[in-house]
């Protein structure tokens, strides 16, 4: 059994302008200990997908269809009461702006202990010991146990957030741009830490990022999202080396590859689609330079280009190397 299975997930937002189809028919799955990267530009639905998995959508948002199976149980059908038991014990999340996610007037260790006490039957003393072990795990010096968030650096706070997310030993951790606001060196340290924890505890991870280069070294699978849909999904090496969706190809050209040729990056002309009234046919068609007639009228289905590697493009096979 897969650890997580997301099937045909649809998450809509009800706004004054109309219904925004932020996530529209997204499917993917994760094995135990596996990491998937969700990449794409702002507004492509990557964060909404992750928030749907945790059922942490803002009040305008609703899951309009599909299933989220965690260990075979449908998460989308659970009541808030039941969900609360699963959150943090089974799934937890590390948000982007860690500096703002901690309570400034409460000691960091206390905040982690609270998460523990809420979910497990522990005495204060046991909780404190667990917190110290967690600090050790995420490589925060134990001398910082009684410090407040402002005494921590940005990197330290992000480590503390990871410690909190790990407190109840979740099977799945979601990292929503966990290193975006951090320096190169700290980013590398945090990603290395997440990788180590993943290997040690067999924890699965959903890593949300707009930086393709992070995905390469830190994930097993990658899903490239565009306009609320998955444009391309597959093992990282296959997708990055043999991208078959025109969007993935263009996105790769927008990133400099320091190990390759020094070519100027290229932008993708046009704008991401309006998700209230998405364009007919393929959502990328108005910006695609290889679009044929069919692209403007019929929505492409996922096509398999090589084992485990799928792309939602009518011409996916023709774009693959190994056709």
């Amino acid at each position, binding site marked *: 059994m897969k650890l997580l299975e997301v099937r045909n997930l649809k998450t809509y937002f009800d706004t004054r302008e109309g219904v925004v189809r932020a996530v529209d028919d997204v499917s993917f799955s994760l094995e135990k200990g596996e990491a998937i990267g969700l990449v794409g*530009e*702002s507004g492509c639905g990557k964060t909404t997908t992750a928030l749907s998995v945790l059922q942490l959508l803002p009040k305008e948002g609703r899951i309009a269809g599909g299933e989220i199976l965690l260990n075979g149980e449908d998460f989308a059908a659970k009541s808030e009461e039941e969900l609360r038991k699963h959150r943090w014990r089974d799934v937890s999340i590390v948000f982007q702006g860690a500096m703002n996610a901690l309570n400034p007037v409460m000691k960091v260790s206390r905040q982690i202990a609270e998460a523990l006490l809420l979910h497990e039957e522990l005495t204060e003393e046991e909780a404190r010991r667990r917190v110290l072990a967690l600090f050790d795990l995420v490589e925060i010096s134990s001398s910082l146990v009684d410090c407040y968030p402002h005494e921590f*650096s*940005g*990197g*330290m706070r992000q480590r503390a957030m990871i410690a909190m997310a790990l407190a109840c030993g979740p099977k799945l951790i979601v990292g929503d741009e966990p290193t975006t606001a951090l*320096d*190169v*060196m*700290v*980013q*590398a*340290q945090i*990603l*290395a830490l997440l990788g180590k924890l993943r290997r040690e505890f067999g924890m699965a991870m959903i890593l949300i990022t*707009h*930086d*393709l*280069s*992070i*995905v*390469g*070294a*830190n994930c097993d699978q990658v899903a490239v999202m565009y306009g609320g849909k998955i444009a391309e999904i597959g093992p*990282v*090496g296959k997708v*990055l080396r043999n991208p078959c969706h025109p969007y993935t190809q*263009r*996105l790769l*050209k*927008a*990133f*400099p*590859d*320091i*190990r390759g040729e*020094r070519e*100027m*990056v*290229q*932008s*993708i002309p046009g704008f991401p689609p309006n998700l209230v009234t998405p364009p007919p046919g393929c959502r990328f068609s108005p910006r695609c330079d290889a679009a044929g007639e069919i692209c403007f009228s019929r929505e492409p289905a996922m096509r398999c280009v090589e084992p485990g590697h799928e792309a939602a493009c009518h011409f996916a096979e023709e774009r693959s190397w190994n056709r």
Partner: protein
Amino acid sequence: MEQVREGMTEHIVDVRDLKVHFEIRRSFLDTLLGRNKATVKAVDGVTFSLRRGEILSLVGESGSGKTTTGRAILNLVAKSGGEALFDGVSVSNRDREWNRMFRRKAQMIFQDPYQSLNPKDMIVDIVSEPLRIDGDRHDQEELLARTVEALEFAGLKPAETYLYKYPNELSGGQRQRVAIAAAFILSPDFIVADEPVSMLDASVRADILNLMVKMRETKNTSYLFITHDLSLAWLISDRVAIMYLGKIMEIGSHRIVAGSCVHPYSRALVDALPTMEEKPRDRALLKGETPSPVKLPPGCRFSPRCSHVRPQCTREEPELRCVEEGHWAACHFAEEFLSKRGAGDPVPLQGEENPSCAQ
């Protein structure tokens, strides 16, 4: 401006031993107990120069002093020592006419397009403001024509649809274009771009970078590009300077960030860079974080975190010195690391565009 052109120096910007120190405000108790004042040495002796039409990147982690260096060159923050010359003249001189010229010729682009534009001004006012206050008289028609030209240059076409909008009606990428149009409208010779693309999506980022390069190609603009992103520095600059705790650790061709660096700190930064490679190499990440610039370690400021540290490093501070043509490093053992720079490292430095040991 013809007089200035006549005496044109080879370098548009010359920074010599620039220092910017900030005093930390002391608490009443500290004063009472007569404790020493603490100073943050944000920039602590930085020397480099920028040729006309050159793009030099300053890279480093937060707190390395890269932004303060950029601001000091534009005289936006007071220097504590050293000198910054623009066209051979100190930027802190008080000549009114010269300053007027300087403000026209040197511009800055900021990181956050959500904060750098006045929300109460329409785009047309934001972009034409430099023209209106630069002293020369422009009639309304000319102002408008040049604003339209600048907006279209910055890729906001047709400009008429943007003129009478407010910043909140634009996306982040469009706002950064407005900021760029406002910086470009006076055809500056020199631009300090402080993380101009770090808040933008990849595709928009590519557009803005191309725009900056186009500006260099058509108008020979020089840039000081401040970034924490090594791959962007490598991509668009001629030379790169790597800063750590207020000092330049290494400066040389853009290739130093692609692996031809010799300083252990540069090496650590380059190794920390995420790559698209599937299986990452085993890399030794630096432990801990940058120490506080209030209490600098003795000797080399990188020594407490350096994996190659030797006794000399904690005693003597290394000077920035030439290790090969156009390549300088502040490490006692730079030559040794240079000779060890093995076959595994990409591209040795050769065929430099502007070879010279003079920085």
